[in-house]
């Protein structure tokens, strides 16, 4: 399955870059991320605990950075496995100067998933992952705003990352809003797979940041 998308950050590339180097901010955008360990400049290991609704599980992921052309682009390979299945992904991330002090981030990748992730989660992965990515970018936007404000010495803006529960609720609400079929709403029980997908996106983004 392919994932691709873009997002405009309201800040210069350098600031966006720095934000992505801050593991705490990233972890807050994806509540449940437990660790991201740097093995060397090219290799990282991450752990993510996903607990949404009645389903929970932890996933261990390895991340490899290649084709580095910092601060513009890089290629990432992610291999994540957990009790609920596995995901392998290769992705490219680009940061572009976008004028008016904004930064355009573009990402595209190919993800393979297996196990319960695939057999029960597949049908909703596409739409839920979009929603989760959207929700996470909203958090990052706020974080960036807070960081820029702090930097410029203006009135500090309070940044409060959402809790895991709030995050899950937002995604669920987002999903349910676009759905008319009751059966698809039931699918929200299977939101977990998507969390892993988002982990990949987060790792992709963070990998470039590191």
């Amino acid at each position, binding site marked *: 399955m392919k994932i691709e998308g873009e997002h405009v950050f309201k800040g210069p590339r350098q600031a966006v870059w720095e934000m992505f180097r801050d593991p705490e901010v990233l972890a807050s955008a994806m509540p449940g991320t437990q660790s991201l360990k740097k093995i060397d400049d090219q290799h990282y290991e991450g752990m993510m605990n996903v607990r949404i609704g009645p389903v929970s599980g932890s996933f261990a992921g390895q991340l490899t950075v290649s084709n580095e052309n910092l601060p513009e682009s890089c290629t990432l390979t992610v291999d994540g496995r957990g*009790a609920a*299945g*596995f995901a392998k992904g290769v992705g490219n991330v680009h940061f572009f100067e976008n004028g008016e002090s904004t930064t355009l981030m573009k990402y595209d990748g190919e993800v*393979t*998933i*297996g*196990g*319960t992730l*695939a*057999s*029960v989660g*597949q*049908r909703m992965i596409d739409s839920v992952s979009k929603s989760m990515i959207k929700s996470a970018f909203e958090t990052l936007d706020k974080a960036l705003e807070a960081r820029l404000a702090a930097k410029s010495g203006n009135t500090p803006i309070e940044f409060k990352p959402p809790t895991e529960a709030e995050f899950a609720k937002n995604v669920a609400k987002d999903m349910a809003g676009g759905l008319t079929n009751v*059966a698809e709403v*039931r*699918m929200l029980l*299977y939101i977990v797979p998507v969390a892993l997908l988002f982990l990949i996106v987060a790792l992709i983004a963070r990998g470039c940041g590191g």
Partner: protein
Amino acid sequence: MAGKYFGQPILRNEDAQLLSGKARFIDDIDLPGMLHAAFLRSDFAHARIKKIDYSAALKRSGVVAVYTAEDFGDFWRPGPLQVPPPTAIKGSVFNARTLVPIAKDKVRFSGEPLAVIIAESRYIAEDAFDDIIVEIEPLDAVNDLEKALEPGAPLVHEDLDSNLAADVVQERGNYEEARAKADVVISRKILVNRNAGAALENRGFVVEWEERSRQMTVWATTQAPIPLRNTIAARMGLFENQVRVITPFIGGGFGPKIMTSQADDVLLPWIAMKLKRPIKWIEDRRENFLATTSERDQVHYAEIALTKEGTILGVKDVFYHNTGAYDPYGMTVPLNTQTHTVSNYRVPNFYTQIKMVFTNQMVVTPVRGAGRPQGVFVMERLMDAAARELNMDPAEIRMKNLLIPDEFPLRTGIIGQDFVEGVLDSGNYKKNLEKTMEIVGYEKFRKEIQPKLRAEGKHVGIGIVTFTEGTAVGPYEGARVTIGANGKVNVATGISTQGQGHFTSFAQIVAEQVGIDVKDINVVTGDTAHFHWGAGTFASRGAAVAGSAIHNAAVKVREKIFSLASKIFEEPEENLEVGDGKVWVKSNPSQSMLLGDLALRANPTRGTIEPGVEPGLEATAYYGPPYGATGAGAVAMIVNLDPETMQVKVEHFVIVHDCGTAINPMILEGQVYGGISMGIGNAFYEKMVYDDNGQLLSASFMDYLMPQATDMPAKMELGHLVTTTPLNTLGIKGVGEAGAIPTPAAFVQAVEDALHGQVEIMESNLNPSRIFEYLQKKQ
């Protein structure tokens, strides 16, 4: 040949138990000291196993044991070839790679067991999944049937040169010569997608080894209790009579419960003997999708040659059949496809080739229809393409080519799943079609209703197809009928029951002979302690084959009644009558005896029985047909397609079916209705989807949709024709799979018609998005 009991719509004996929640199903069995099993299954479809470390699992409280392939030592070996391929087909290739009970060294499909955990509860057994570390090296998977045979494709079985599982050519006449003479030749690529049996009850297995009596008791949701017992006994080195297989009530079968070599069947008896405690395993729904067999999935390259008047000169069909990662069930499914492709039409020249392919998917074995829907789909689609090409009405071109009764019995020249050349025994195919057209109002719909509705902007279409159903194949079944001193009857047969109403229909067969009410007849199916010869419930054979054996046994008991009563009353047998639980002298009804009392007399405590007489009012009999009986029918359906949503509503569904004599018309209709709902499911709701890596993407009822009450036709009509088969005394043909066979073909034709023939659809399982895609492609 309807009688007082036989042929009557008698209400079912088994209902009260089922309705009140008192019927015992497999998961209701609870034995003292029972342990629970769970299987850790592979997430990868194709991979090499490096190491499985379960030491942490053993430390978990409540876990009793964990086993991987290595732990079974020499006991680990590939399972039996449950159905060997027919040897009679010359030049055929078959590479047997039977199912392994648990993956060793290599994983070949997603869901293949890696470890089995035995614990005090199922909850704990599944908790232990998290404790097991599996080191595995993923390999490229093979899923596309055609690419699988290309050089360089990843090999499912590395000891073979390719992924070819079987190659079988069967032929009658000479297709190439016929083709040369034809006015029109039409070639199409036709796809039939994969479906699940999806019985509401998953599989289950409970086993107890009683050390003191050295007896093993197995409760299983099997369609083949006796073959299961035999294979367990052989594997465990026991006598057959040391193993008793009991099937409790079973929540639907539909084919996949026929297997006798899945992980539970093989491993749990061994573990129960080792641990000396009873073990229970109940499959969950995801496991059922991943690791219980399913069917369909063929790619056909088919061709039909005709005269310009629409007379068929020949058909050629070369098709790829997905057998999954192993082929324990031989070639049953693709052989059924071969025998059903042209069976109802006059096709003098026919060439058919199976290329059976190994893939990294779950094993394929029959699901209700079993290869027949594929054959029918291919032929009916060719007929539709031909009708369009020749500007003929779909009904007209069919009528022109259907076989007529004078042609029966007709040898087909094609060897089928029962290892013998197919013979069409009887039937009236044209009448099936005529009656269907009459009930659905075909002419009126075409000429008046459809034009009017189209003028109103409605997208309505009609589909009309015909089919045959090869049923009631051998080898044999048997039964024992016993009248007890209580005046009631016990009937035991070797097949098992999954909802077909055998407890009633078999009782009706016996009641008719012995004159005892159906309610007083107790039928035992699927208990090897009661009857231990037989093959199982498959290929729509229960009623016709086991039913005939039961009839034969009941006739013998009837003879014994007359013979003994004749001596007691000192009256010739022809002066006696039996009924209402007694036997009496016709000329003097007061001279009578209850059958229970007669049964006592048939089993004397002193004196002797006469030489040549067996004791008791009991008899055992067997029946085996030379070849299967062929049922037939026709289906018409009118659909209404919503051009906004592409939702298709079946407004009117008509089936005319001929399965010979009906034992119980109410049960028969129920079977047909059920088959239709599965057919509609296959056509528009159900689809098992594997991705390129062999991951099953539809392993829950949220993704694998089955028809619900609102999806069924607004109006359903059943018509019956009775052409009795000469193959058994009762004239019965099977019916279990009928509804599922023609429905996808009729549905697709109706959808094409609803779309004014704008698109041609050559695949069996549609859904709204798929129809939308066809229309998009067109534009």
